[in-house]
């Protein structure tokens, strides 16, 4: 494994190293107008054609000078550091009818630089307010809370990479939720990310809280994939796009330090690894299917009660380190969105199945299984309704099965805010039951983010 890690790091270095006056086409000739004798119909037509040609040449010349003037103004703006000046042609451009008409200089395809401010990253801030009512014997939500404030900073670093930072402030303080560089210009259809990021394990783990279709995450995420924080860690991710004419296939390999909610390493030589294969295909122009298989493995620190640790009866809880945990996940998503009515109607159906195998201090593995199935339907321009069914064992106690379900209704005033109500029921393995009503206000300011897909 150490040799593998060394070769991966060497490979990363190798990948990074590889990235590292217009002239007149034809001069005008003066039209000779014969005024001495009366002109015949042919002569009148010829003179008219000549006048048309001259008019077109004049228009073309004017366009040349308009373009030159525009370029000069833009250069002046650049030199002076003034505001961005967009100077469209002063008049609608008359079309040249003859191929030999004068061509203006090639268009400037880049916007003039207004000032050094243009290099600032795209910035946005998202607020996630949650209210909770009802009964939950294991309640973790207070009646009202600013669950999370997330600030995003995103920009191109240089011709070879871009960077994305997501800083989150929540109930447990401030943290870098994600912060990574993406090398976009590697050979071999590779994409390399380095930094702290959410692991490409399944679907729900990759989503930020404010992009979830419901207020909360599924029970299987809570029980087996690190809970709210999910599987987010420092490391690197290499993914390869398999070009083929049939479907989108992406292979991803990742290595993480083992400092997440899911994996905890006590040695530098023990890392957590993720592999994922994702396949996607358009079924029709309005529907598609998205399938994925994920695997994660790494060391964990297990805190168990005395009954589970041989010969440790006198100690209430004990920690055991370096125990392996392996997760295997399968996810499937079906989407339907009729293009002609894309802003009014959409259906997403999704399921994730996750198998967990946890090495235990007293020999046998604890094998747990969890899953969820959810559906979300947009029935009007600003309204969505959805439901989710949950069932999950617990990583350290597979026999303890939690079951639950939720229904939710979302109102989207605009792309930048949403108001959601959710009813959630959980039947805990201990026999207790939770019936809760959750209310969410989710809002963003700043740059327009990417649509969630």
């Amino acid at each position: 494994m150490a040799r593998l890690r060394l070769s991966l790091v060497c490979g990363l270095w190798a990948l990074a190293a590889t990235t590292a006056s217009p002239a007149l086409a034809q001069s005008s000739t003066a039209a000779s107008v014969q005024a001495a004798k009366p002109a015949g119909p042919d002569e009148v037509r010829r003179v008219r054609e000549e006048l048309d040609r001259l008019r077109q040449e004049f228009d073309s010349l004017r366009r040349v000078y308009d373009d030159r003037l525009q370029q000069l103004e833009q250069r002046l703006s650049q030199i002076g550091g003034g505001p961005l000046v967009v100077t469209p042609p002063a008049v609608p451009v008359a079309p040249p009818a003859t191929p030999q008409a004068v061509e203006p200089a090639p268009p400037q395809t880049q916007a003039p630089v207004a000032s050094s401010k243009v290099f600032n990253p795209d910035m946005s801030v998202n607020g996630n307010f949650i209210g909770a009512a009802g009964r939950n014997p294991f309640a973790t939500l207070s009646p009202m809370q600013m669950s999370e404030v997330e600030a995003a900073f995103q920009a191109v670093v240089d011709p070879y990479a871009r960077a994305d930072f997501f800083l989150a402030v929540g109930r447990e303080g401030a943290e870098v939720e994600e912060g990574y560089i993406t090398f976009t210009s590697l050979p071999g259809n590779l994409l390399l990310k380095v930094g702290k990021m959410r692991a490409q394990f399944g679907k729900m783990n990759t989503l930020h809280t404010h992009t979830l279709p419901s207020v909360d995450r599924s029970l299987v995420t809570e029980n087996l994939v690190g809970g709210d924080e999910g599987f987010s860690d420092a490391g690197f991710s290499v993914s390869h796009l398999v070009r083929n004419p049939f479907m989108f296939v992406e292979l991803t390999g990742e290595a993480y330090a083992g400092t997440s909610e899911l994996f905890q390493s006590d040695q530098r030589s023990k890392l957590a690894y993720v592999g994922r294969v994702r396949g996607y295909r358009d079924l029709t122009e309005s529907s598609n299917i998205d399938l994925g298989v994920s695997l994660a493995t790494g060391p964990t620190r297990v805190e168990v009660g005395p009954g589970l640790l041989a010969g440790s009866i006198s100690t209430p809880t004990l920690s055991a380190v370096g125990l392996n945990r392996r997760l295997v996940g399968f996810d499937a998503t079906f989407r339907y969105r009729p293009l002609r009515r894309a802003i009014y109607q959409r259906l997403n159906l999704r399921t994730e199945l996750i198998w967990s195998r946890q090495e235990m201090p007293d020999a046998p593995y604890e094998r747990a299984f969890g899953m969820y199935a959810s559906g979300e339907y947009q029935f009007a321009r600003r309204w969505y309704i959805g439901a989710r069914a949950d069932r999950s064992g617990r990583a350290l106690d597979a026999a303890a099965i939690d079951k639950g379900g939720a229904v939710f209704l979302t109102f989207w005033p605009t792309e930048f805010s949403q108001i959601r109500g959710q009813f959630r029921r959980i039947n805990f393995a201990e026999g207790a039951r939770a019936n809760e009503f959750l209310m969410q206000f989710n809002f963003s300011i700043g740059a327009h983010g990417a649509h969630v897909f």
Partner: protein
Amino acid sequence: MTSRYVRFLAAPALAAVLAAVAGGATAAGSVAPLKVVTTTEDLASLAREVGGDRVTVVGLAKGYQDPHQVDPKPSFILEVSRADLLIAVGRELEIGWLPALVTSSRNAKVQAGGTGFLDASRNVKILEIPTGQITRAMGDVHPEGNPHYWLDPGNGRQIAKAIRDKLIALAPNDRAVFEQRYAQFDTRLAAAEKKWDAALAPYKGAKLVTYHRSWPNFMERWGLNVIGYVEPKPGIPAPPSHIIQLIDEMQRQGVKLIVVEPYFSLKTPQSIASRIGGTVLVLAPSVGGVKEAGDYIQLFDYNVAQLTAALKQATGR
């Protein structure tokens, strides 16, 4: 156990090597047409006009789809990954979906600053560039101006010219082909413009209402006067109070025509039309928006014919 994980993680690397070998073999073969990917069907049509058989063109968003609301589908990533040239409308029209596609494409040519990227908006006439403080209270406003600029044939000419120059830069051996095809398109467009000008000349100054702010370049080009919008602000559905105000204004000014894009519901426009005895007219904002608008010139052929007929009925001229 370890060897199993090694095999699992080695699979992407092996696939990468195979793909690189396959790509190299293709590159060593005959010179293939340039692969052009455009964000909209309008740009695709213009690229086909200029590129002819020296290019293969794929348009991502359909003409009957709201270009603001496009999903960044993985199938689009595949298309962009293979592109020699990516042409975008720009002015933040595709801001919700194109950056994600470009980043995931692994295609160095089409990244920001790459040789294979063309922002078609950089030498055209842009209207409605907001001034002063810009906030989301103005709706889904585009800070760099209205991005529906292709609906002026003069701008279409400028876009075609920019495409010609970019294609020449990417395939200089085909310069003569691109120049000739551009000139032919220019001539056909000029002739068509005379026809469209003549058809709409009687209605210069005519007033109408549109659903979204998709038509400023089109309306300015032919001197038509948009007095209001069904949307109170870009991307914001109309509340009843706005509809009432709009109906009052249309009645006051004698406006009878409401132009709607094919991807908006007709319910509200038809409700307004029924109150004022007016007409709802669905025009194609993009190539492919209706089946008759099969290319850039046909787009205007269709819209001008439909609009002329509707204005004749509405104005009696």
